[in-house]
């Protein structure tokens, strides 16, 4: 930490690493960044000619104002939350799985096979279990493709997972147009799942929300209290350290990506059997991408993801409301999410470093 003596003046601001910031202060900083992001989004709303406070208020009301919309918001939360936990498992080992969309779609297709073609054979509980297992297996296997390439040849997983999204999407379109096309339909769509194969509703929302809460607890336990969770963290910190410690990096990558894909596949199954009752190109609906932000904002903490997923679902639901009221396009939510993420990302710098003004403090040698 030395400035070139005499050659240049000391810069106006310099950064010093801090090691003494209490978690409370750190969260206060993040809170400030969050509010600044909302202000920034508010300015945009202002420029568009609306009152930001009213727009924000109506967004909140649109998501939590009545039991009907609350159910809709929860319905949006479930896939976001479970996908985020799945992606977080991969992100924790610095494996950038952005193939959530594709893994959700293949999960839905695998579940769809049982749901659409064996619903007459099996009673509901067995059918649901079959669909879940199929969805998870398909999603997990789809997640294994980039994992194997990465483990063996260090192939760039970001691009492979992304390309697999487009492939899964094309496959769903193929099924809609051809083999799985609803009989008698003039335009491409799949048949509806018969009511006997649908997930039961609890408090107005399919019971996937209970499952999601259970997954949150299990995931927290898995990440923080088990040997496998620890291995994931070590691989994420440094692959060399992991190797010295005798951890098989390949094994961890492959195992974790199966879990990651399987959770996404489960989401596909729930979207099919609990929410939409059919499969379309929109079954994943951007959840695989939005969940990245959920996992990241929550710093890979499952309980944090529960809070963030509820918040993001609120933005998603609320943006539909403001589209109706103010004619502000619903894409506003993804714009706002982007702004919030930028601020949170920038804020981490101030959590790790502090700025010292010129001449305020003598730099120590």
């Amino acid at each position, binding site marked *: 930490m030395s400035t070139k003596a005499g050659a240049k003046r000391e810069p106006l601001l310099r950064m010093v690493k801090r090691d003494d910031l209490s978690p409370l202060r750190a969260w206060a900083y993040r809170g400030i960044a969050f509010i600044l992001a909302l202000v920034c989004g508010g300015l945009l709303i202002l420029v568009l000619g609306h009152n930001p406070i009213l727009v924000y208020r109506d967004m909140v009301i649109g998501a939590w104002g009545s039991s009907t919309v609350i159910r809709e918001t929860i319905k949006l939360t479930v896939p976001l939350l479970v996908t985020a936990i799945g992606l977080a498992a991969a992100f924790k080992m610095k494996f950038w799985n952005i193939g959530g969309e594709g893994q959700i779609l293949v999960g839905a297709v695998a579940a769809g096979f049982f749901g659409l073609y064996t619903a007459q054979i099996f009673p509901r509980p067995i059918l649901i279990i079959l669909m879940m297992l199929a969805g998870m297996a398909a999603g997990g296997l789809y997640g294994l493709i980039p994992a194997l390439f990465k483990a063996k040849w260090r192939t760039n997983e970001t691009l492979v997972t992304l390309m697999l999204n487009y492939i899964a999407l094309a496959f769903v379109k193929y099924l809609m147009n*051809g083999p799985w096309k609803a009989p008698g339909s003039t335009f491409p769509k799949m048949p509806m799942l018969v009511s006997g194969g649908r997930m039961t509703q609890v408090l107005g929302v399919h019971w996937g929300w209970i499952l999601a809460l259970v997954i949150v607890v299990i995931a927290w336990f898995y990440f923080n209290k088990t040997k496998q969770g620890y291995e994931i963290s070590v691989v994420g910190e440094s692959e060399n350290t992991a190797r010295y410690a005798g951890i098989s990096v390949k094994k961890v990558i492959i195992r974790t990506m199966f879990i990651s894909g399987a959770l996404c596949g489960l989401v596909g199954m729930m979207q099919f059997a609990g929410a939409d009752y059919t499969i379309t190109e929109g079954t994943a609906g951007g959840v695989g991408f939005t969940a990245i932000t959920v996992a990241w904002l929550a710093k890979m903490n499952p309980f944090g993801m529960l809070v963030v997923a509820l918040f993001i679902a609120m933005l998603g639901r609320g943006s539909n409301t403001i589209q109706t009221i103010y004619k502000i396009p619903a894409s506003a939510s993804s714009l706002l999410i*982007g702004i919030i993420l930028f601020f949170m*990302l920038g804020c981490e710098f101030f959590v790790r470093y502090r700025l010292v003004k010129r001449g305020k403090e003598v730099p120590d040698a």
Partner: protein
Amino acid sequence: MLDTTVALLVAAVLAGTPLLLGALGEILTERSGNLNLGVEGMMFMGAITGLIGSFFYEQAVIGAGLAPSGALSALIALLVSFLAGAFGALIYGFLTITLRANQNVTGLILTIFGTGFGNFFGEYFGLKAGGYIAVSKATKSAFAPINIPYLSDLPVVGKLFFSYNWMVYFAIALAIAMAWFFFKSRVGLNLRAVGEDPAAADAAGINVSRYRYFATVIGGGICGIGGMYMCMVTTSGVWVHGCVSGYGWLAVALVIFATWRPLRGMVLAVIFGGLMVMRMYISIPGLPAQIYEMVPYVITILVLVITSIRQSKEHAMPASCGLNYFREDR
């Protein structure tokens, strides 16, 4: 048969140009050591702003009772889309270079932000313009194929070389200029040094942060221009929701295949452009259209895997790519 081949090649060049522009922007960025995965986002930002720029220019001129000039409108679109892409890259640069944020995450967020940005303003101005936003004939004709007397009329050769819109030639010129810049100019050499070994470059008196900022911001601007191509040429001057979808990511993959060399990028862009449009020109009996649609993506994965198997020093990514440089961490 010849006609089909020529038509396919022409379509390949047209579809490959936005890929080339995106890849060129990203090559410049990655050569400086910044791995910006926000290409898709920056392309979206360039696409919508370029379109809106032209649209407002036309409205203003028509409002004043004059006829809009196509060339001026195209120039405005070029400038505005460059600025928009550069703005996205500036956010990325500020976060990664100054605030030391993780490059992968920042790039992904830039993609999310840029996609939202494009779709939001596309819909917003579409609603204002009464349904959808589209430029007038004057601007459209500025992006129409050029017509050089005699040359464009030549059989085959005329079609293959002299039948494109000006942006195709612009992209080719940019690729050649960039190749010269990297391998023949002093500044380009410095830039490569920053990307390979920032600590050594720093010791040699090169301002690492400045080089990274400039390369990233200009690279982002070029990506923005690539996005503008998508909505001016590919969708003929009309905003289509999600119009960039996937091209930005293919451009990122193209950078790897081109081994960070602009001229190779040019050739590969035509090949990948060809893969994107092949299904409209060559039908394979018994192959459903939707399965055919997968072809470019499957091939991208295959090539990615093959390049990763055959890794060599010479064709590797700039050594510091993806890593931030902190002088005091040395």
